[in-house]
Every structure is written in structure tokens, then in C-alpha cells.
């Protein structure tokens, strides 16, 4: 394999070479269209149906070729072949729907049946076509794996036209498709023609599949439909953003994939496009902020650290509070022993040691000599604040149990943010009054209040 020069790369990627420009542009447009309509196919939970559909196009290609040859044409006209592909693809879909609606077989049975039977017929028809005397059927099998380099100007116009149409339709029907994919029964009860909408989605999928046959091939085109939206889902919880990401991923896969294939002729475009899409998927799955694996792991470990820190500060403050209560009633920052802290919660010695190391690094804790520990000046202030907020939450849960569950976030730092200043003021009043009806829960969240001056 010869690796291309940088100047070649630049020429291809920036579309300055006419032949590769056609290929790259058509696969890029195809990527946008399949990214958009693929998102709805995915959300409608019909991904496998797309796979069956693409395989069902093969007999149509062979039959269209034979009809065109018998009528005296060359048999290689792309619009003719793709029309045949569309017809047999749609026939496959209708057969699937028929199997589902008239028998009690499950969806996947119908899909598996249509996929294998139509593909089998297609292979048989193609080999029959090879044997027609006087007709040159060579190259028909390229629809199975795709042959992007064969795209010429007239093909490009057809592919671009269909891709643009499918993209516009996906955006135009955004609201209707969303409703159908989310809640079909509700959509039907509201009078939307759900069957027609479903068929329209499948027609758009067929259109994109068929124009993808030439460049990506019928086996791999499903990856072009499914991978970009699946990758996009990791980045966002918003459907419109998902569509944008999906179209972008489709565009990048088509653009890069066709470019790489043009630079390294040994690599077929269809395979490279799918590999680029798969790489985007992998990156999304690992790194996407909204649902990616690594960000989720980081979020969880950050939360764990925060909870640890708050637990330590509260435990330490309550220790100090209990001991200084015995002395004279006000909370003074006195040293406490490691053992006492260990007993305060159910944490292992190892875990507590690592928490204390962090606390020391954050300058919340300092050694007080003779194996004793003491909160630092800023640590003491922080501990008092965390403990107070935690108590506010607990008071809130007890006093407002009726509305509390949907509002409670036990993170001490969130109390003002979620409950609002007015509620916090009221809770503080409750807390300092130590109202009789507010009975606080026992250990492990033992709450010992600094007695209000009026109550001595």
C-alpha cells in the first residue's frame, strides 16, 4: 500500500480534484441525509428493518437489469437499476409489515425472513443475469459492497437530489416524526395518520438506502443509517441537537471515508466510511459529556469525593460540638482523636485515612500533637457551614414531607439553590427554635444543636 503525499491529501480533502470531488461530495450529502432519517429509524426502534430493507433491494437490481436488457437498453442505467432496487426494497418492507400484522410471529422473525430470502433471490438473479448472452452484467455485484469511484456527474445529480429531498423532509416532518416515535398510540388518538407517517419514514429510508448502494453497498449502508444517530445520542438529551450531531457525523464519515479511499485505492470507500463512522461512535461512547462512559465515571467519582468531604467535615464538627458542649456551651475548635472520628461513621480505617489526606491537602485539617487532630481555621468555618446546611435539609425533609421528596437534593451545597432564600430563612428559624414537633432522627445523622441563648 502506498501512502499518499500531503499535497494529494490536501487536493482530495479540499475537493480540488474533479473526479474525487464528485465522489466525496455525494457520500457527504448521503451522510447528512442518512444521519437525519437514520435518527428517526433508530428512535422508532426499526434499525433492523433498515437492514432487511437494504438486503431486499438486490433482486430489484438484477430484475431491472434483465428488463432493461430485454428492452434493448444497456442495462447499466443507474436510475433504472435504482428504481428496481426501490421497488423490491419496498416490497420487502411490505412483506415484513404483512407478516407482522397477519401472523402472530414476532417482528424479528419477519425481518430475518425478508433479509435472507430477498438476498438469496438477489444473488440467484444476479448470477442468472451474468449468463444472459450479449449482455454485460459485470459490475452489478458492486452494489453489494459499493464502488464509490464509479460515481459520475449524472449519478451525482441523482444522489444529491434524493439526499437533499430526504434531509428537507426529515426536518419538515420533525414534529410529526417525533410524536410518532415517542408515543404512537397518543399520536393516533390525536388523529395523526400514523400508518402513513410510518410508511413515509420507510420510504425516506428506502430512498437513502438506494442512493447509498452505489457508494457504500447494500451490506454496509445500514451502518451509515444507524451509527451516526447512535453516536449522536451520547452527546445530548435534546432531539434537535441529536439530529444536528447525527447529520454532522454522517457528513464527516462520508467526507473522510471517501477521501481516504480516494487516496488509498486499495481501501474500498464503503468500508472506510463505516470505519470512520465507527470511530466517531467509539469516541462518542467514551468521551461525550452527556452520556459518555468516561465523563459519567468522572462525575461519579467527583460526587463520591464531594460526599466524602462533606461527611468528614460534618463528623468532625459534630465531634467538636459534642465535646465543647460539655465544657461551656459554645462550639470551640478543639482537637479530637482519630479513633473518635473513626467511630463516628461506618467508614474503614483505610478509607478514613485517604479522606483525611485529602482534607489535609485542602488545608481543612491540621495535626494537633499527641496523635490528636484539629480542624484548621478555614476547615472549621467550612465544617460549620456544611453541618448547618445538612441540618437545614433534614429539617426540611421532616417539616415538609408532603412536598419534600421531589425537591430534595442531599448535597449540602445545593440547599439555598434549590429551596430558595425564603424557605432557608424559615428553616433556620425552625432549627434555632428547636420546635418540639421537629423530632430529629437518631444516629448516624445525630444532630446536636448548639443551644440557643434563650434556652440555657
Amino acid at each position: 500500500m502506498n501512502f499518499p503525499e500531503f499535497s494529494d491529501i490536501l487536493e482530495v480533502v479540499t475537493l480540488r480534484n474533479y473526479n474525487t470531488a464528485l465522489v466525496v461530495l455525494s457520500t457527504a450529502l448521503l451522510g447528512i441525509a442518512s444521519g437525519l432519517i437514520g435518527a428517526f429509524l433508530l428512535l422508532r426502534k426499526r434499525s433492523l428493518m433498515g437492514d432487511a430493507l437494504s438486503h431486499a433491494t438486490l433482486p430489484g437490481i438484477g430484475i431491472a437489469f434483465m428488463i432493461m436488457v430485454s428492452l434493448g437498453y444497456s442495462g447499466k442505467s443507474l436510475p433504472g437499476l435504482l428504481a428496481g432496487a426501490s421497488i423490491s426494497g419496498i416490497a420487502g418492507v411490505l412483506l415484513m409489515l404483512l407478516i407482522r400484522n397477519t401472523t402472530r410471529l414476532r417482528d424479528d422473525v419477519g425481518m430475518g425472513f425478508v433479509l435472507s430470502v430477498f438476498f438469496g433471490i438477489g444473488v440467484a438473479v444476479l448470477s442468472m443475469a451474468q449468463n444472459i448472452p450479449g449482455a454485460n452484467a459485470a459490475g452489478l455485484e458492486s452494489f453489494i459492497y459499493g464502488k464509490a469511484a464509479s460515481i459520475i456527474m449524472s449519478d451525482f445529480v441523482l444522489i444529491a437530489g434524493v439526499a437533499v429531498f430526504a434531509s428537507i423532509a426529515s426536518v419538515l416532518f420533525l414534529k410529526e416524526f417525533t410524536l410518532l416515535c415517542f408515543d404512537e398510540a397518543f399520536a393516533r388518538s390525536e388523529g395523526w395518520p400514523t400508518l402513513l407517517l410510518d410508511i413515509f419514514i420507510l420510504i425516506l429510508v428506502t430512498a437513502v438506502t438506494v442512493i447509498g448502494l452505489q457508494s457504500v453497498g447494500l451490506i454496509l449502508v445500514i451502518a451509515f443509517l444507524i451509527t451516526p444517530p447512535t453516536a449522536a445520542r451520547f452527546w445530548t438529551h435534546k432531539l434537535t441537537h441529536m439530529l444536528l450531531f447525527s447529520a454532522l457525523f454522517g457528513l464527516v464519515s462520508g467526507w473522510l471515508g471517501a477521501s481516504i479511499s480516494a487516496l488509498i485505492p486499495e481501501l474500498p470507500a464503503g468500508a472506510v466510511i463505516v470505519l470512520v463512522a465507527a470511530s466517531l461512535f467509539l469516541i462518542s461512547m467514551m468521551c461525550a459529556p452527556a452520556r459518555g462512559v468516561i465523563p459519567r465515571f468522572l462525575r461519579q467519582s467527583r460526587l463520591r469525593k464531594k460526599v466524602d468531604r462533606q461527611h468528614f467535615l460534618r463528623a468532625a464538627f459534630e465531634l467538636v460540638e459534642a465535646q465543647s458542649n460539655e465544657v461551656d456551651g459554645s462550639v470551640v475548635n478543639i482537637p479530637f482523636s482519630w479513633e473518635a472520628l473513626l467511630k463516628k461513621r461506618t467508614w474503614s480505617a483505610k478509607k478514613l485515612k485517604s479522606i483525611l489526606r485529602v482534607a489535609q491537602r485542602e488545608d481543612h485539617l491540621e495535626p494537633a500533637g499527641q496523635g490528636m487532630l484539629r480542624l484548621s481555621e478555614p476547615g472549621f468555618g467550612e465544617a460549620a457551614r456544611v453541618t448547618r446546611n445538612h441540618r437545614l435539609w433534614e429539617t426540611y425533609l421532616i417539616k415538609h414531607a408532603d412536598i419534600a421528596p421531589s425537591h430534595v437534593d442531599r448535597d449540602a451545597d445545593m440547599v439555598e439553590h434549590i429551596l430558595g432564600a425564603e424557605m432557608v430563612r424559615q428553616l433556620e428559624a425552625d432549627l434555632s427554635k428547636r420546635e418540639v414537633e421537629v423530632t430529629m432522627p437518631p444516629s448516624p445523622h445525630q444532630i446536636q444543636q448548639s443551644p440557643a441563648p434563650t434556652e440555657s
Partner: protein
Amino acid sequence: MDSTFVDTPPTSQGGVPDSRPEHPPEIPLAIHDLTVAYHRKPVLWDVELNIPEGKLVGIVGPNGAGKSTLLKACLDLVPITSGWAHVYGKSYKKHRHLVGYVPQRESVDWDFPVSALDVVAMGTYRHIGWFRRVGKKQKEAARDALEQVGIGHLADRQISQLSGGQQQRVFLARALVQDAQLYLMDEPFAAVDAATEQAIVALLRELNARGKTVLVVHHDLATVSKYFDWLVLLNMRVVASGPTEETFTRENLQKTYGGKLDLLEDAAEALRHVV
């Protein structure tokens, strides 16, 4: 069972509501001779039902009694084998703007990439019509509805991050923005927390107070007499229908649940309150 079904004498009289005096034409929901069959097996048969205006109606019956199917048949969601269901004297097709529907919560995928507000706004789609986007007015209405069900602060949250009870409230809010006269609700109390159950009951009563008719598929016999002023006891056919205090009797429950009744703990509990 099939032969019973076939032998049942046809009672339909051409499907004209006026020809049947027992179905007053302007009531919210009139069902006549309704039979629904799935795969040759009847799920509902010969259902005759009148739901009067302004009632809070509970539909109660054992599993597989056809409660959900009854709602779906009224909404044209399942093919009707015979008979009809009329909304305010007309077919559902003509009067669907008068009906709001709350499907079962488990019927949709809650991992769908939309926010609570987006779902509620779906209740306004029929007013918006084809192709046009959800506007400011509709968003406002959706926000108000979320406030009404007590989760206005969760409007922008993605629906998978809501609890089961909150998801149910989202569905109710969507029905509220439909601004209907007749509400059909499929198990809104299924698997929700106590606070949500109370909130839903309060909401149903408020709708009721505003003159709306509300039909609720319900499964908890213990709360029937507390929540509903009209009761339909269903087990493939209508066992009894009428004001709760007259309908909710030991005898009717026995007919609805058969031998299963004694096995149901809450039923036993409920029967203690039955006269």
C-alpha cells in the same frame, strides 16, 4: 368460549344512536353492543355503557378484563368487531377534539431524547397542525400545565431523569393542555408514590369540579369508594355500572372477580367498607 361468542344474538340495530333510547345522544360517552376480539378471542363483548356528564368514573376489574382495551376501542386504537362508541353523540373521529387521553406510562420509552416540557407540548400538536413548530403560546400552556401538576421546576429536565411519579405527572400535564371535555386515563395510579397519588386525585377532582368527565382505569379496590363517584365493574362484559355507593357491593365484586376476590388482600380490605 368461541361458540358462546358466535351464538350471542346480534343486538345491533344499524348503529344509529337515536334509534336506541337507552343512549341519550349528548352524553360524554355512550357505548353500544361493543365487541372487540384479538386473534379470534373476544376481549370485550356486548358492552353497553352510558357515562353521564361531569362524573369521576372508575373502571375496575381483574387483569385481562379488557379495561385498557375498552379505552382503546373508544379511541379507535383497536379494531372494533361490532358495535360503536360515541363521544357526545358523534363518532370519535368527529369529536376527538373533545377527548384527552393518558396512555399507560410503560407504553413509551422514557429514555427518549426530549424534555418534560417537550412531552407536554405534544398535547398542543393538534392545534398547531402540520409542519408548524411549537410556538411561545404552546410552551406557555405546557409550562402552566406542569405547574398545575406540581412539577413546574422540572420542565427542562430530560424525561429519563424523572421519577416514575413525575413521569406520570408529565403525562397528566399533556392531557391538561389538550383541554378536553372527556378524559380517558389508563392506570394513572400504577406504581406511583403516595404523594403523586394524592396530587393526581386532587387534579382529577379539580377537573371534575370544572365540569369535565374523567374515566380512570383503576386497580386498587381499597380506594375505589374514596376516589370515584361513578363506577364501572368490568370483566369482558359490564358487570355493573352506576353510582359508586350503589355499584360497589360485595355481590357485584364477586361477579366481577369470581373466586379470585378472596385472594386479593386489598379487595378483602375494601369489602370491609362495603355495605
